[in-house]
């Protein structure tokens, strides 16, 4: 354990705020925080990835989801599943502020793809086992990070605040690969909604259950923390009566517009599935 | 991207449809479908702008030899005229055989 003060991050801020009096579990990793607060009688397992300059793997020291993080997320989610196998299934909340997946030679060699698959697998298993699984995006949700830590939940929630970003690639890299300037990418995001970095554009895709407005993501007041907690709790209640799966994200007003193609493909594929 | 449209005389009735190619770099896909209309319609979507005349020349030559009553769609990603002709012939082969 490091004796230095932990690096601040939105993920850590929101974890500490939402964990309340619950003591963090010893995960063995400075980059993964897990705690089990009880909110008005509702047991919740919180998980978050945070920067750890002392991290074992050098390429995962700035809040990236690396090899150890993926497997550890899988471990702690499965732990909750096993612990609750004969009792009420606690909610699982992924607080998402992940810079990206870790990029490195060792990561490639040692199978980071499988590490992230394990995390996604664990969250999906929790979901289908009856645990309400909610993701709360408070900062960056880049690429593999979100796929592994959050996307397999029942519901995605996000703070409607500056710096809350969902995307497949960092802007600078995306600009280079698509041979555009960063400014051009920003402009493109206004009409090509799935390419936008702004969370409010992302919300138009119908993927978010809720965009929580009026929150200072970096330094929330007690009232704002209470509001976010209440919105998560409301999502958990909603899930318990109406779980659905990932296709539930197609079933809202926004998706009917921006994801008309997804809906149409599914409909027509089903029509043609059996030979005439 | 440029979208070009061409019309040709529709003579030969077709019974089959045909699809060839991929929209890869330097390549194209061609879809030929039977049509009941009095003229054949060709729609070209191409990633390279400014070559309408070349497209017309290639398509004119193709339709002069073979006058299908067809709806033709071409999605092109920078193929040479030679490759376009090749794909058109392959597609034509597909509706004939």
């Amino acid at each position, binding site marked *: 354990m490091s004796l230095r003060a932990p690096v601040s991050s939105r993920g850590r801020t929101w974890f500490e705020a939402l964990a309340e009096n619950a003591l963090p579990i010893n995960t063995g990793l400075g980059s993964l925080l897990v705690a089990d607060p009880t909110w008005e009688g509702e047991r919740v397992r919180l998980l978050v990835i945070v920067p750890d300059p002392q991290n*074992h*793997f050098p*390429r995962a020291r700035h809040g990236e989801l690396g090899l150890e993080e993926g*497997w*550890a997320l*899988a*471990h702690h989610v499965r732990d909750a599943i096993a612990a609750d196998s004969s009792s009420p299934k606690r909610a699982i909340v992924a607080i998402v502020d992940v810079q990206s997946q870790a*990029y*490195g030679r*060792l*990561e*490639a060699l*040692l*199978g*980071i*793809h*499988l590490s*992230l*698959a*394990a995390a*996604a697998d664990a969250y999906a*298993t929790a979901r*289908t086992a009856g645990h309400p699984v909610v993701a709360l995006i408070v900062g960056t949700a880049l*690429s*593999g990070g*979100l*796929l592994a830590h959050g*996307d397999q939940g029942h519901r995605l929630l996000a703070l409607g605040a500056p710096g809350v970003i969902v*995307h*497949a*690639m960092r802007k600078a890299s*995306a600009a280079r690969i*698509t041979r555009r300037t960063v400014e051009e990418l920003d402009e493109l995001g206004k009409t*090509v909604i*799935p*390419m936008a970095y702004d969370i409010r554009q*992302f919300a138009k*895709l119908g*993927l978010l259950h809720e965009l929580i407005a009026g929150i200072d993501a970096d330094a929330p007041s007690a009232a704002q923390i209470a509001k976010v907690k209440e919105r998560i709790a409301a999502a958990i209640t909603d899930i318990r009566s109406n779980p659905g*799966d*990932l296709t539930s*994200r197609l079933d809202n007003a926004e998706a009917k517009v921006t994801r*008309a*193609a*997804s809906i*149409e*493909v599914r409909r*027509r*594929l*089903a029509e043609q*599935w059996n030979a005439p | *991207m440029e979208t070009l449209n061409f019309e040709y005389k529709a003579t030969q009735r077709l019974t089959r449809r045909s*699809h060839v190619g*991929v*929209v*890869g770099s330097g390549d194209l896909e061609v879809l030929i479908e039977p049509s009941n209309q009095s003229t054949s319609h060709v729609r070209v*979507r191409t990633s390279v702008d400014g070559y309408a005349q070349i497209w017309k020349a290639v398509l004119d030559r193709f339709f002069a030899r073979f006058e299908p009553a067809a709806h033709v769609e071409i*999605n*092109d*990603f920078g193929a040479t005229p030679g490759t376009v002709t090749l794909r058109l012939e392959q597609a034509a082969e597909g509706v004939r055989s």
Partner: protein
Amino acid sequence: MTSTIHSDNPITKERRDRFLSRQSVIEMRARERARALLDPGSFREVLNPFDRLEFPWLPLQGIVPESDDGVVVARGQFAGKPAVIMAIEGAFQGGGMGEVSATKIAAALALARRDWESSRPILPVLLLETGGVRLQEANLGEAVVAEIHAEIIALRRHTPVIGVITGMIGCFGGMSIAAGLCSYLVVLPQARLELNGPEVIEQEAGIDELNAGDKHLIWSLMGGEQRYETGFVDALVEDDVKALRQAVQALAERGVRSRHRSEMVEEYRRRLATIDPAAPPDGPALRRMWPREVKS
């Protein structure tokens, strides 16, 4: 003196015949691959190029779409039993997953699961030739890839979900996670399987971390043979349709896997604990430390 050096020794003749009769999968397009894998005459494409799907995002950006959006879904028979092949076309946008192409896969997996739930067996096979999510559809591509993950996890309880990676594009990004979720994986030596493309690693971590031009290094980290020798995939075959079919069949016959690789959390945490990042192994060294069989 003339002599024709032309050995009809049975061993060399057999090798020569095999070489001549080999049919490269790498050289085939997605549609051909799907057709070649299925029993002759049984190929039926679902949502074919003539079905006139709408492509909402590419033309908006001046990018020419492909009629099938780069994925071929084909039903048919495999070794006499119902199967569905989902083949990604690597030549179109680097096999990048967009809204439509990824939905074709997610929906096909969902329908396969619905079949199983109605006692109609069907074998799903994914031909993974993809750079990951199509950047021009970023967040939607990502969202639907998440749906693919969910579907694989649900479907593999009923039937093996078999992934095939041949190259030369390989399997990267969010679809490498999909590969990690599959019941079984077959690869060619030419294949690569990894979350991050070499160019992206070089760009994000610097050329000293990884030189994307160093092919030998790349394949020693993420190539088909390396992945096979270190237990990340289940079969390694040569670039030949017949060999591939045999490998897929053998894996299908193993049946539903009781523990998938992505569920072997403690085993992999233990494996990872043997690694010292300060003295990292290279590809060959890892083969000695992490053998093919992952011990429980």
